[in-house]
């Protein structure tokens, strides 16, 4: 028998059988508890011993949390549905291919087998200063290493920075946002249904969190309304290499067409800010107009108004302009 290694700081491990049991454990242990979904983000923190929860509450055996079912006229996807189960789901592919494509673009087959939709939208930023345990603002310190003059900040923000310049890493978040999805969150007996707009938060709201979720909260499902079922959609993710990689930037868009006129639209980009950004000015600039190359070019210009790059991420500005242009161009006849 080999040597026993002890890489992770020890914790108590619970596998509650029901959502109520999980919520009871979370309220009992408060800040000491960590919700474990697929673990792809969680274990990274544990193994570096940067996060050392005393109690880990694994949602893995709560069957109801991985169900994908009809809800009203839309779909309700359990927070623990694996990304693979989303990619393989026929109804999602038929009605909401934007989500299928986004989920397909996440990481690797193994990670999609284990990673969950709830975990994917709740995951923490991948800013490497923060992930390496540097005492930055986000970690409770008093500086942002990624915004310092010598910093390597090629992957960081061009929008929405407030002391911290980290970006949201999730590929599914912009797709869900574009589909007007809502997040169902339980805390004790209380249930809230939260719009994507309010679920993803920036550092000016709370610099230590990427989402509205706090200790004791459990994301139970994500609802997709029928509104965008069957819409024209566009998804594109730009990354440094072809195998697996987090997005440098991505765009997720949905369009309702009336002939060749844009009747309604959602355009969301990620990788540019600490949260996925819905570009309402771009939407306003195209709704009611005939889709054309000029409209697409104009939309790209509107998209980048107000952006501010850091020392090493100038490239993100034309990338954002082009992604938005290509999204709108996709509906040109």
């Amino acid at each position, binding site marked *: *028998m*080999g*040597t*026993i*290694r*002890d*890489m*992770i*700081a*020890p*914790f*108590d*491990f619970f*596998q509650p059988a029901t959502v109520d049991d999980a919520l009871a454990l979370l309220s009992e242990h408060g800040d000491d508890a960590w919700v*474990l979904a*697929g*673990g*792809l983000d969680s*274990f*990274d923190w*544990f*193994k570096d011993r940067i996060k050392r929860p*005393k109690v*880990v509450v*694994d949602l*893995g055996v709560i069957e109801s949390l991985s169900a994908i079912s009809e809800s009203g006229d839309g779909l309700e996807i359990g927070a623990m549905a694996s990304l693979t189960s989303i990619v393989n789901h026929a109804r999602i592919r038929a009605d909401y291919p934007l989500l299928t494509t986004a989920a397909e673009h996440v*990481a*690797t*087959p*193994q*990670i999609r*087998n*284990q990673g969950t939709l709830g975990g994917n939208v709740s995951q923490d930023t991948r800013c490497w200063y923060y992930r390496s345990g540097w005492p930055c603002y986000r970690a409770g310190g008093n500086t942002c290493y990624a915004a310092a003059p010598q910093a390597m900040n090629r992957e960081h923000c061009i929008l929405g920075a407030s002391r911290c310049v980290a970006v949201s890493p999730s590929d599914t978040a912009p797709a869900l946002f574009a589909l007007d999805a809502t997040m169902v969150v339980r805390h004790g007996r209380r249930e809230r249904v939260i719009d994507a707009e309010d679920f993803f938060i920036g550092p000016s709201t709370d610099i230590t969190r990427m989402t509205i979720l706090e200790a004791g909260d459990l994301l139970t499902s994500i609802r997709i309304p029928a509104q965008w079922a069957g819409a024209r959609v566009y998804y594109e993710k730009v990354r440094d290499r072809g*195998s*697996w990689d987090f997005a440098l930037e991505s765009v997720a868009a949905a369009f309702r067409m009336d002939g060749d006129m844009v009747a309604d639209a959602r355009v969301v980009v990620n990788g540019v800010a600490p949260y996925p950004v819905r570009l309402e000015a771009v939407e306003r600039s195209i709704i009611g107009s005939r889709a054309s190359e000029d409209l697409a070019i104009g939309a790209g210009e509107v998209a980048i108004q107000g952006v501010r790059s850091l020392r090493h991420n100038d490239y993100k500005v034309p990338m954002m302009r082009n992604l938005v242009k290509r999204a709108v161009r996709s509906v040109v006849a």
Partner: protein
Amino acid sequence: MAGTTEVVRLNVNGDTREVGVPTHYTLLETLRYVLALTGSKQGCDKGDCGACTVLLDGVPTLSCITPVWEAEGKSVTTVEGLAGPSGPHPLQDEFDLNGAAQCGFCTPGILCSAAALLERTGTPTRDEIKEALAGNLCRCTGYTKIYDAIEAAAERMSAAG
């Protein structure tokens, strides 16, 4: 109590194993350091490389990111379990014949991902093979010989019916 040891009951490569493990252990740590099944490799230990890939109920899974308790009630197949009573798995033979392993560190994980692929798709295209291995990094053989070996194994298995 954090740091306590509890008994986990696993089905590994067809055998039932009951062992005491610290509550925070991963499946990989249990396989390697408790069950002495060192075929599954601890590469990055972070989900990046796929060297620790095992099959959980046939599904390629990163054992370094799997709490050992999640494997209870499922069948765990590691590289040690791929060979049958009549000899090595065709993939193992073809990796040998095609020179598809240099240092061999990535090989156990790749064999598990490939075995699951061949279980699902008898004669995968090269693109399907690439996609199935997208989570398994090889830093020395290069992928061409690995793809060749998997194609050869697929042919051999479909010829054998």
